[in-house]
């Protein structure tokens, strides 16, 4: 306990998050570029190793995409971008003692209410019994199979979770070390039971549609499960890689729940605050409004960063939580890399397919078939597999889905300070980054279309809208500096997964430049608000530091 009060006291003394103007020094062991959840997790672990660390964040607030606060939009403040919290793994919470820094958890997860055009609804709840009851109203046989389904895939997820908290093995052959590290992975694989491996094997490569259609007969159940699989992806549920995405989600859930900690009270904002506080308690310097303009490189290794405004910071280790293209093309500069590498880097698919819409409402709308109590979960529009697949086809041709899939939440219902108005936040998928005709001309049409699409489910919605704000993938790019505006930084797909994430040369969180590391969602295991990529990068850096000393 004394340990905690010490850290708390220390924190009391410095509750400022610095700006470049008040920075205390110029030289560090490590600079973390970007103060999102992965950057903060990485900074914490590096500081724990005893390194002197500074985090430089371009925006005025920490949290990156996890906390979507924009200063110019006071009316719609603090909407978590990824409003469904997949959760920081229990082991990271324990390692970083985040509960000492104000992170509290509530034991229950989010309830999903899925609705279709005919007014049917389905509730999937963290408690199996409730889900069963709801499914039973649609199909008896599906209700029976649902527990087997969750049981089966939860087991697979639990067995495979060991693979997300370490950097993937390099695929480059020929060097002694790489073969050895592959063997290391195989050793891990050998610990997983043969039965689970076999089940995982065919499942991992399958389209989620095959799995849920083979098992269930209800369209709404199939569509709802497939929604979780395709969320954040650019393809539909009939494509390979979507079951892997579903499994990834289960793994994240399993990791978050492994200590029964539940979900952070206060959402991702609270989690980010705790991460920042714990970092500062470990002597990490955090600078906001500190935009990196250049990563300084010479003789094939990093020396520091230049900040907007002319300030320079020096360090031998630079960890970027930005996406790989932004890091290498904009900040490091192509001249330091060979041509073939840059060509492959440019070929990484990184366009987002999600738009976010935030509505300020005079009061809660009516949603056909739902009672107000159900507004406290997430509301999903994803009625069947073919509906999703059709929606996904649009972006191939630079168009947005006319009938999109959507996830709606009402953050104002969770806010501790109840306000006069309500806030509805929805993510809309499949929306192209590059729209035919350009977003400048298509934006209003899109906004109009989406509001009308939502009106179908909430007939009185338009009368209650006080303010609306839409973020297209292009806006997300502008706001967060992510090339392509993809919230996974780079597309999550079979060919950009694991040892291929986002390209084989970058998959171990390293780059061809000595001392330059990546810790963002563009590295394994990808997106989701877990901080795992930050953790994995810190492990890689720790190994490198140990080898050198």
């Amino acid at each position: 306990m004394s340990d905690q009060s010490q850290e708390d006291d220390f924190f009391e003394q410095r509750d400022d998050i610095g700006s470049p103007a008040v920075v205390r020094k110029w030289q560090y062991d490590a600079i973390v570029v970007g103060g999102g959840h992965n950057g903060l997790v990485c900074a914490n672990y590096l500081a724990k190793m005893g390194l002197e660390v500074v985090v430089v964040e371009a925006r005025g607030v920490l949290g990156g995409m996890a906390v979507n606060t924009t200063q110019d939009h006071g009316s719609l403040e603090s909407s978590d971008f990824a409003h469904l919290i997949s959760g920081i793994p229990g082991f990271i919470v324990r390692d970083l003692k985040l509960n000492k820094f104000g992170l509290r958890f509530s034991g229950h997860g989010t309830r999903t209410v899925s609705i279709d055009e005919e007014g049917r609804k389905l509730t999937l709840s963290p408690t199996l019994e409730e889900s069963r009851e709801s499914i039973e109203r649609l199909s008896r046989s599906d209700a029976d199979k649902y527990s087997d389904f969750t049981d089966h895939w939860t087991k697979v997820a639990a067995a495979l979770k060991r693979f997300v908290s370490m950097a993937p093995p390099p695929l480059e052959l020929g060097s002694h070390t790489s073969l050895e590290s592959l063997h290391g992975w195989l050793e891990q694989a050998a610990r997983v039971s043969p039965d689970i491996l076999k089940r995982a094997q065919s499942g991992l490569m399958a389209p989620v549609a095959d799995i849920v259609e083979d098992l269930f007969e209800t369209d709404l159940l199939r569509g709802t499960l497939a929604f979780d699989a395709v969320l954040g992806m650019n393809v539909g549920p009939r494509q390979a890689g979507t079951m892997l995405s579903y499994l990834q989600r289960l793994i994240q859930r399993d990791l978050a729940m492994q200590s029964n900690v539940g979900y952070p009270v206060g959402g991702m904002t609270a989690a980010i605050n705790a991460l920042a506080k714990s970092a500062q308690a470990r002597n990490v310097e955090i600078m906001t409004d500190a935009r990196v303009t250049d990563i300084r490189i010479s003789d094939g290794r990093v020396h520091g960063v230049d900040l907007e405004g002319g300030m320079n910071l020096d360090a031998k280790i630079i960890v970027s939580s930005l996406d790989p293209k932004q890091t290498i093309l904009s900040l490091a500069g192509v001249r330091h890399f060979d041509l073939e590498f840059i060509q492959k880097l440019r070929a990484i698919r990184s366009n987002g397919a999600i738009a976010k819409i935030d509505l300020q409402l005079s009061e809660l709308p009516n949603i056909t078939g739902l009672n107000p109590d159900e507004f406290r979960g997430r509301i999903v529009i994803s009625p069947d597999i073919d509906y999703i697949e059709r929606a996904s086809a649009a972006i191939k041709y630079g168009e947005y889905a006319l009938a999109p899939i959507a996830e709606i939440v009402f953050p104002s219902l969770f806010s501790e300070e109840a306000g006069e108005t309500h806030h509805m936040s929805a993510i809309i998928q499949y929306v192209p980054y590059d729209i035919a005709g350009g977003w400048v001309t298509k934006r209003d049409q899109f906004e109009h279309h989406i509001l009308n699409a939502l009106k179908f489910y909430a007939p009185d919605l338009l009368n209650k809208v006080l303010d609306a704000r839409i973020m297209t993938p292009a806006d997300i790019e502008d706001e967060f500096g992510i090339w392509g505006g993809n919230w996974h930084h780079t597309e999550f797909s079979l060919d950009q997964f694991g040892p291929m994430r986002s390209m084989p040369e970058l998959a171990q969180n390293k780059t061809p430049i000595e001392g330059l590391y990546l810790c963002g969602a563009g590295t394994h295991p990808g997106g989701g608000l877990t901080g795992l990529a930050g953790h994995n990068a810190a492990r890689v850096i720790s190994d490198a530091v140990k080898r050198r000393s």
Partner: protein
Amino acid sequence: MKDYDIAIIGAGHNGLIAACYLAKAGFSVGVFERNKEVGGAAVTREGPSGFTYFEGPHVLTGFSPSVMRELDLSQYGLDIIPLPGRTTLNAEGQFLTTNRDERQSFSAIKYFSLQDAEMYRVFLRDLTRQKRIAALSQPRIGSDQRFGKRYLREDVGKWLGQVEQFGKDALSESVRLWTSSCADYLQSYFQEDIVQAHIASPVFMGVDKGPFCPATAFLLLRCGFDQSLHGAQGFVRGGMNRLSHALESAAKDAGVDIHLRSEVIEVQVEKNKVRGLTLIDSTSVKAKVVVSSLDLKRSVMMLFDWKDTERGVLEQARNYKLEGTLAKLNIALDGLPKFPNLPQDSTVLGGLMNFVSNLFEIEAAYDAWRDQIVPSRPFLEITIPSVMDPSLAPTGKHLMSVYVQYIPTKLLSGPWDTAARERLATIVIDQIAAHSPDFTKRIEDWSLSVPRDFEDKFSLTNGDVFHGQLSLSQILSGSALLGSNGTLPGIDGFHLCSPVTTEDRGMTGLPGARIARRIARGFEDE
């Protein structure tokens, strides 16, 4: 009915090839065929006065030279005319013709882009390397005993050692090939739309995915872009049924009994051991071993009474995906149509042709198929086999054979009735006529088969010409259900010789040959 050592279901090419090998090995073999003729889908029929229509495939791709030699098929009249080339003609009237000669293909691509031409060489070299890696005896996925620590450390370790010989990047390039979309993969080599579309064109015939779908690049391995794909590629002189007749004669000479109009309705099983067959007229045929050339789904679901045995097998077979995507149009022409944008030489007109400008056109047709509607621009593979083989049409006249890709088995709008068929034929004819002003007026007759017809005529479930789609998960799960000898779990003496037993789903004849060799070896072991 006489007893046999081995009874074979279906007199398609694989069934007949298996029969030949087994009879030559000294077994008594009976082949049972539902139709009134042999050949399965490799058949032709008489069109109007003097035309020969191709009911199924119009070219052989990758037919095994060893099968040809060992069964002495040229003695029985099989003559393969090499395919002269493949041509893509785009909307701007530019064309690209390539063939298995790398130098000629290089010059043709160079016309569009020197860089693409140079990358074509790299592409061929990379594909050849990947074929070799794929051919390594891989750590097999699927059968239980192969997992576990020893397997992972030793087998995978050994395999990695072998892969390493193909270069530092062999493994990452392998993973890239097996997980990427065909579009991404091709775009990493080629810049010109016509080059990308041209190379993708043989990949997607019969496939239930489009070029932008994840995990479709590995399908490139099936295509014989150069000499690295073994086997004969070309037209069968006299029509595809000459292959079937050559196999029929070879089988009869080897002592095989071929029973036509003899549909098998059940495989008799006693105590998990095959006892024989029951025919549709209730005739019982005793046999020690039964070989089925039907697809996996049909074999499992229609031939067995699964009450007594594992229901899991039935479940897996039910979930096995077979999808029809191909329609077939035969067109009788009163002369060779003119294509003003193409040279009038046999390399082009006597080869395979398509009219795609870019990968998006192929993808758009796929998107329509997935929505169960007829694409406005279906993806065509056109050939005029009578250019190379005048015997297929009356003197001066020509036969055109068209594979129409991305045609749904079921239409959202209703049944495949006469009106729907005529609409499809018109769409296809119009697409061809857009490049050939005199085409429409040369048409004497046409005949169309849709996927449903392939199911009715050739017992291909859903009209799937591959006997099961080539998806990554299906390649894994298919081999999980089937044993290495094409066996089913819990049934002794039953083997499958469908293309599903090999990763290459073309008309190679290898499934029949391999299963026959393994069965013969099995008897020796006993």
